[in-house]
């Protein structure tokens, strides 16, 4: 199947994207790497009137370490996380977990921000954010908010489940906020491990 007809806008900045989202409300969806949104549109599980592509917003890219904080831009692709020496050094849990996210074609396009916004309960990256005690920074019309990973996943669930017992993650893409950055504190002397069961995995982090 193919998606129903939709309009397309390529945002030039976070501010520009927020204006577009404010103007179109629930009829607009944010396109990041497109690895969840596009299949859902092709299956016609969702049919946005407008797709706001944030792929060209440079301020959402990049991995940086400042002091004891690791900051990851929302548009950072899975493959960028996998290959990053900063991530391998400061958040090896992510390096390990990413290798189990989907397959290379998806990892070449999929983004951290997209995965967190999609909030699939069976996805690796939201669980990693929880284990790493990350702070998710989101931008909206009302300004910027810093949300602890635990609260973020709770909010994602509420946003997703207007109907009770709805476990499908596909309704959650109506977020009108843009994930800007996620960051993790870097506690010293930390060891992490990640194990998988069957086709699902579980990351954990421990501090000694």
């Amino acid at each position, binding site marked *: 199947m193919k998606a129903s007809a939709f309009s397309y806008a390529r945002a030039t900045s976070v501010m520009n994207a927020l204006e577009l989202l404010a103007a179109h409300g629930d009829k607009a969806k944010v396109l990041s790497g497109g690895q969840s949104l596009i299949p859902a549109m092709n299956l016609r599980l969702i049919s946005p009137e407008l797709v706001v592509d944030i792929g060209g917003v440079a301020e959402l890219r990049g991995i940086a370490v400042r002091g004891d904080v690791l900051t990851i831009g929302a548009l950072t692709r899975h493959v960028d996380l996998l290959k990053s020496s900063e991530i391998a050094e400061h958040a090896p849990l992510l390096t390990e977990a990413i290798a189990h996210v989907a397959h290379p074609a998806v990892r070449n396009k999929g983004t951290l921000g997209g995965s967190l916004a999609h909030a699939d*309960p069976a996805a690796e990256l939201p669980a990693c954010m*929880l284990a790493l005690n990350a702070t998710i920074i989101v931008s909206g019309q009302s300004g910027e908010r810093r949300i602890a990973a635990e609260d973020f996943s709770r909010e994602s669930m509420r946003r997703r489940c207007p109907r009770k017992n709805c476990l499908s993650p596909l309704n959650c893409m109506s977020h009108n906020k843009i994930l800007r950055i996620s960051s993790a504190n870097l506690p010293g002397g930390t060891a992490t*491990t990640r194990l998988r069961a069957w086709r*699902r995995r579980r990351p954990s982090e421990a501090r000694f």
Partner: protein
Amino acid sequence: LTALRMAFFAVGDRPLLAKAAGRLLNVTITPALLSKASTALADELDPHDDQQASASMRRHLAKVLMARSVSALLRRPDLNAGGAV
């Protein structure tokens, strides 16, 4: 262990931090203690059934993973001698 964050996913509507991990802090970890902690984990989780796995299977695997990961973290193969809990 002075701090332990164990995140489990695909066992609920969102990823969850295991409260049962708190039972492993500031104590000498023995197979018996780990077994109690993993039983507590199974009690706190309320996984769903779907075509991928039954709730009881998810609960069981979470227990197994807890034991394996603690064993791996502490480099204590003796904690996971049975391979399952």
